């Protein structure tokens, strides 16, 4: 009796497997045949030079973002899993107005580009750091770390003022934005960043879980930003810019917009700025100050981490503050 049922079950299973294999195999064969006949011609028709260039720029932005994103998520997961909250409350001044500049200056220690700083700022907030201070860190870290400053001095040989101007304008923007958030920011704009699990868990296991969640989450938004950057890169020829080079009034905002759409990594933007030689120095400074703080890739990452309502408000305010601060510092130093 028992045996019979087992045999019957086995037979049923076997029949089902055979049916699945036959049906699935036929379908696969059909798809493969159609694809191999139509595929090459279709692919060649669609694979025009602009499309090929789009794919190259898209994968390039994604590829160069991956190591920095991983660094950022490792740091953020480590903060989440191993650093107790009291460390930050002890390190940062209780007074928000003082904590903001301290956090902004602390941006010097994270040697990465902007992809790394978003997850780190998110985990700082989870660990109880005041949002204003965490946001100042978010803005200053990719702009004033030593790697970026050295790259700037290489790109502008013999112009140490450019490096100084970049440092001051970026730090100024970060601190002003932190203060603005402390004064006018509303916590309900900010979706509290959360991991899939209990955010109070600690230890190695929480580290692994937090790391895989943060990386996948931010990675998805990095891909989204890369697609936007590639689209603008292909759709807007840089020769369009030559029309606006003459007057500082148009040149400075124009390069600030260009920094948003080009999404050049903060470690490379100085070289791009140096190559825009037709523009006045202040406009190139604005390009380097805005780029690490506001660009399409970053807006996508921030929308993913802190919510869309936050990302739009914060990015537009940052753009304005960065523009004014670089205009001011440029007028003073350059």
């Amino acid at each position, binding site marked *: 009796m028992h045996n019979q049922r087992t045999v019957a079950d086995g037979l049923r299973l076997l029949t089902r497997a055979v049916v699945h294999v036959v049906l699935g195999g036929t379908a696969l064969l059909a798809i493969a045949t159609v694809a191999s006949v139509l595929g090459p011609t279709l692919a060649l028709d669609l694979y025009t030079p602009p499309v*090929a260039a789009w794919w190259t720029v898209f994968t390039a932005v994604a*590829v160069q973002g991956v190591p920095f994103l991983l660094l950022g998520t490792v740091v953020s997961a480590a903060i989440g899993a191993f650093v107790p909250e009291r460390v930050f409350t002890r390190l940062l001044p209780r007074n928000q107005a003082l904590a903001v500049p301290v956090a902004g200056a602390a941006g010097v220690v994270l040697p990465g580009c902007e992809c790394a700083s978003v997850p780190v700022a998110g985990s700082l907030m989870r660990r109880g750091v005041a949002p204003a201070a965490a946001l100042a860190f978010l803005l200053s870290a990719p702009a004033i770390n030593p790697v970026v400053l050295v790259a700037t001095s290489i*790109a502008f040989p013999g112009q140490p003022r450019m490096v100084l101007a970049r440092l001051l304008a970026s730090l100024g923007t970060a601190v002003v934005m932190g203060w603005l958030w402390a004064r006018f920011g509303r916590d309900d704009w900010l979706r509290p960043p*959360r991991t899939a699990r209990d955010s109070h868990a600690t230890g190695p296991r929480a580290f692994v879980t937090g790391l895989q969640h943060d990386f996948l989450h931010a990675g998805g938004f990095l*891909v989204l930003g890369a697609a936007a950057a590639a689209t603008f*890169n292909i759709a807007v020829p840089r020769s369009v810019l030559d029309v606006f080079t003459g007057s500082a009034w148009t040149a400075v905002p124009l390069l600030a917009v260009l920094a948003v759409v080009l999404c050049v990594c903060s470690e490379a933007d100085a*070289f791009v700025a140096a190559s825009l*030689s037709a523009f006045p120095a202040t406009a190139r400074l604005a390009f380097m100050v805005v780029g690490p703080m506001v660009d399409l890739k970053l807006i996508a990452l921030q929308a*993913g981490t802190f919510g869309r309502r936050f990302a739009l408000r914060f990015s537009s305010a940052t753009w304005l503050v960065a523009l004014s601060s670089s205009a001011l510092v440029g007028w003073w130093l350059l």
Partner: protein
Amino acid sequence: MRRYGGPVLLCLVGAAALRITLFSELYLRYVQHALRPYLIVSGIALILLGVTTAVLRSRTADGEDGADGGSDEDGGSDEDGHGHHGHSHHGHHGAAGPRIAWLLTLPAFALLVFPPPALGSYSAGREAAQRAAQGVGAFPALPAGNPVELTLAEFSSRAIYDSGRSLTGRTVRMTGFVTHGSGGTWYLTRLMVTCCAADATTSKVEIRGEDAPPTDTWVTVTGTWHPKGRLGSDAAWPPVLDAGSAKTVKQPSDPYETP
């Protein structure tokens, strides 16, 4: 798949990173060579992370009978009455990781199956070639060698800005791809990439005395500098080379110049 989606994605991205760095030099089409070690480390770390997460997940499934997959639903229904709302809020943070993460399959599959080509004449033609920003001045002496190997960027800046005229009387050799200008002129062109292909800028040198190969052919040109225009002026640009020979070559493994 819901349970193991996250680990699979991590391994996929890791494998793509290793495929273009460890098993080929394809990464040079996208980023500059200094990024290679970081990409290799990232690739290995991502695969390890994927495997670790998969092991953790399977253990949770054995030990706690699927508590893992159900945790989100539980979290939602804890808030009595708001259960449904809570669930939809957490919805995109399932056990397989956030849904947006599936976008990562696009670049990963592109790199694994069909790596996009290096940028070429299309990108070079779209941007007015940029001149490096610098003033006229004396450059250090050229290295010895006849012909002397130069990058297009180096040749251009010496041709336009070198008051010491270090190119005079030297035979130089440069490699790049072919682009065409108006009226039968052609250029030896190369893109310069600082960090990734998104920041590519163009250098080009007009070639005289040799017939133009088809667009995008890679050639090595040997010749001498043909001075033109006043130093540092627009008329000096693009620089000109009187070619002695132009030889078709294979695309170099690093298709770009680095500063």
